[in-house]
């Protein structure tokens, strides 16, 4: 009886058996890459806001301190988005008729909030506290990037847990002197490693063993 399959079938079956492993691996890699890509994490994606507010202009050009608008950053877990009142402090005087600012004036007139789009959106089971990071010498720039160069704000890091842990394991790499916390483009004056270690001791930063406890962020 003649063979049912031609000899070349052996090669095909070998390739497909071994190829399946690679194919599965490829799929996994693709899934992982997708998961880490800006498509999922939204890293670096500029978000369209109801008002095209430019941090580049307000922070970079005007030099307004972060805390003028984000008043609670030193006191609370949440660094507040400024109320319409804060915008109107200036914009009743300057650019008071600008069509760009109509949503702000409308909010002021109708007492309805401006629906800002959340850029840094942590999962609901993560409890981040701004005030403790500021108090312990982590600069705004460390997580938010050079907002003074962002016309529209985008998410600077991936915001994945690995990124959080990088710093919680080695906090000294991201510590600044207190007067530089709100500075954009901070450059350490001297050996960064030494300064970091010195600051960690001064701020009494807890050891990584404690900083990486699950309940530090999850509860």
């Amino acid at each position: 009886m003649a063979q049912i399959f031609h000899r070349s079938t052996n090669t095909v079956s070998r390739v497909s058996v071994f190829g399946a492993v690679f194919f599965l691996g490829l799929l996994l890699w693709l899934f992982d890459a997708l998961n880490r890509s800006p498509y999922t994490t939204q890293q670096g994606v500029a978000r369209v806001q109801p008002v095209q507010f430019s941090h580049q202009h307000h922070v970079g050009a005007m030099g307004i301190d972060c805390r003028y608008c984000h008043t609670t950053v030193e006191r609370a877990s949440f660094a507040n988005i400024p109320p319409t009142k804060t915008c109107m402090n200036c914009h009743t005087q300057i650019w008071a008729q600008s069509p760009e600012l109509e949503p702000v004036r409308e909010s002021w007139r109708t007492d309805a909030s401006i629906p800002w789009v959340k850029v840094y959106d942590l999962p609901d089971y993560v409890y981040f506290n701004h005030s403790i990071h500021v108090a312990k010498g982590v600069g705004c720039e460390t997580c938010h990037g050079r907002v003074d160069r962002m016309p529209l704000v985008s998410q600077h890091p991936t915001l994945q847990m690995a990124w959080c842990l990088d710093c919680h394991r080695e906090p000294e790499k991201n510590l600044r002197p207190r007067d530089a916390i709100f500075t954009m483009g901070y450059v350490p004056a001297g050996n960064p490693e030494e300064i970091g270690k010195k600051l960690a001791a001064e701020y009494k930063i807890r050891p990584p063993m404690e900083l990486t406890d699950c309940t530090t962020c999850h509860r």
Partner: protein
Amino acid sequence: MKFTVDSRRSTGVDIGAARTKLGELHGREYWRSLEELLETDDFREHLHREFRVPIDSGVDRRELLTLMGASIALAGLTGCTRQPTERIYPYVKPPEEIVPGEPLFYATAHLHEGYARGVLAKSYEGRPIKVDGNDLHPASLGGSDVFAQASILNMYDPDRSQTLTERGQIRPWSALLAAVKLTLEQERPRRGSGLRFLTTTVTSPTLQAQIAAVLAELPDAKWIAWEPTGRENVFAGTKLAFGQELQPVYAFDKADVVLSLEADFLGSGPSMPRHVRDFVSRRRAETMNRLYVVESTPTLTGARADHRRPLTPAAIESFAASVAAGVGVGGISAGAPADAFADAVAADLKSHAGASLVVAGETQPPAVHALAHAMNAALGNVGKTVRYVGSAADTPAAQTAALAELVGEMADGRVSTLVILGGNPAFNTPADLDFGKAMQKVGLRIRLGLYNDETSRLCHWNVAEAHALESWSDARAEDGTVTILQPLIAPLFSGKTAHELLAAFSAEPEKSAHDIVRDQWRGKLPGDFEAAWQKSLHDGLVDGSAFPSRPVAVRSFPLDPRASTLDPSLTLLFRPDPTIWDGSYANNGWLQELAKPMTKLTWDNAALMAPATAEKLGVTTEDVVELSFAGRRVEAPVWVMPGQAEGCVTIHFGYGRTRGGRVADGTGFNAYALRESRTLWAAPGVEIRKTLRRYPLATTQHQHSMEGRAPVRAVTAAAYLENPGVVAHMGEPPPGPHDTMYPQLPRGSYAWGMAIDLSTCVGCNACVIACQSENNIPIVGKEQVQRGRAMQWIRIDRYYKGSLDAPETFHQPVTCMHCENAPCEVVCPVNATVHSAEGLNQMVYNRCVGTRYCSNNCPYKVRRFNFFLYSDFTTEIKKMVNNPEVTVRSRGVMEKCSYCVQRINRARYAAEKENRPIKDGEIVTACEQACPARAITFGNVDDPESRVSRAKAEKRGYGLLVELGTRPRTSYLASLSNPSPALAPAEEPEKHKA
């Protein structure tokens, strides 16, 4: 009626066998329930299947595999979704005091039976989420009870009355004002003779003044107050003894010897937290007080007694008379029968004259109250352990008579307008009055109520009432202290307060509650009004508003002849339910699912009877019986209650709602249907007929078994003082510090731990509800409770010791022990439960895949699993009650006590920002904060000076199941008792009649 002893069925509990079994036990043996004692089939099933699973799911193997395959695929796919875009809505003009994400606290009051108890309500961005006691308030002292804790859930109840309606049609407020105006025009010429106001007990000075103003205008109108748990007997008792209606105010901290005549001062009442704190301040070995309790049905107070006697109501009266004769109250020595127990109590009271206290419960007839007052006077306690003040409630004390008169007038058609402010009279008034029927003869019926309930159905106008946390008002505590209630949130359903409805009857019909209350106090506060007003709001009480003590002199009074007329056969006792009270909390899921402190029943009430009574009737737990009294019948499941007085059947009212809401309806039976105005608390001569049906009850008492070990340790104060080491030898010793295969974990800056003092814990459940409120714990429903799936992170175990008829009762709160060598951690395949450097046994919800291995391996059975989507993720208003600092758990996730890690972190942020260590007492867990007895202490066990370390250093400290080498961080302090040397413990079994 005739009792017949029938042959036992295999399904029920055989009480006779239980008695035999108990006879075989010697020494200090504890038992949890009759089922456990007998190891019934049901109990064994509970034991061996920690969570009872459905036996027949209706799914075959192939179908199951298909479903599993599909669910795995779908579960994988859910991981692929991207986070949806979220928006932030900042304020337009920010309120000055609000920092987003930071809570604010406001002092206001929780009303219980009309009396105020100070609370601090916690609010995030104008959304109240938690209620706790107010340290400054004399009735609270920082402690709270289950009702105050759970009141927050009532506010967010989607079943609340949401609109103003007239005969079912939605109407504006102005329409009601017009209707009231019309009524007033009709009533004015006849001096208001057709107008009646029906309220609950009112202690609000503003409301009292408003009603008085209306009655001054319309002198023939009447105001009636009805509270199903009213304290008529208290006032009648003081009137009998002193000739005036007075409110006794107790100082339990000054009493060496306390006798309670069925007064449940540790378990209920507006001043319960105060009473508990004062009482337990004397439960330390060196300064131990002694508590004698006689009562018909077991209460929390009875559970803490050093000597407790179950007595029928008639026997309590004669017992009170005997003790009164013994302590030298004149004029009653003749008739009092001799009783060794009464003599011993009398002798003990007498030897502590001036530092003793006799308390009578609201359920006792006026004569017993009068006897208690006479005893206190004879013992020289007045002015020391008890003082008397005026009544904060302004209505006639005889509420029942006034209500009966109102019903008579209504039935005769003499009432043209009835205004019902709060309450639920169509449901909770005595059955013989038939209030609902009489009420329908009234021409215009206006109702202000939180719910669209049984009474609303019979009213023309229904006004949605504002919740206490939405209202401006004021109210007095028992001692007269005034609290001004302030709202934390605008009324969710544009509800109105009683003040606003009454204003409609005044010259200023549209005045706001705020202005009404403020104007009432203008000129009455000391000093500058604005400053005093702000201070009163801030402190939660008005300075100097407590009533002064009134001098009293005992008059001679006749003893109530009722004692002799009480039928010695079966007596039916009516009591408010320990968790849903008079029915006003029936739609509160937290309270429905809360295990009742003595029975550990949830979602139902039952007819409680003594084992001996059940034996005589031939019934057992879960048998349905028909109770009939004066021609009215009610069917109820039986609950065999150790410690119940023989011949007494207790039913709790509040259940059997027909229009209570989605949670309330269909639970339990209506005990009010048997309650008559003559026999409000005890109805002698009830008939009980056995039916052939059984009714499953959901109890939590034997869902977790401790396999015959002794989790509770108790010792007499004398024995402990003599040999403090006695507690340590009651259980097996723990293995040595190095006898373990677990790796030694590094220790962080703090080591959190907890100590629970069983000597001061009264088992009141406040911690359970506080934890539920703080940690967003869902309810699961009766059917799931029966399967052992109740979710509360704290359970309070109840143990009995001794005889079936009069056992000693112990309560033990059990929660996650945060073991240093935690058995749960090593079995988790996904590292979802791991140890923190500070000793927390962390539960990471987002890692948990729901294998439940951890729960299987936990020796304390304190882990809870979300078998279904128990948390409500869809009803907007129910989401508002959630604590924003705690994750809301989804289906398939394990959860358990976290030591309130959100509170630890909050304290840590505050401390670290100031570069200092966390101070002792800075972290207060939710259970610790709620505990009226301060039985729970939390802190750093590595700091020898911390409160928790000092507590743990006491010789009566012990750990639960330490022999397993788990090294629990939560430990216990043994319960101390102080039995009288005159009453030898051997005398106890003498009460056995079987």
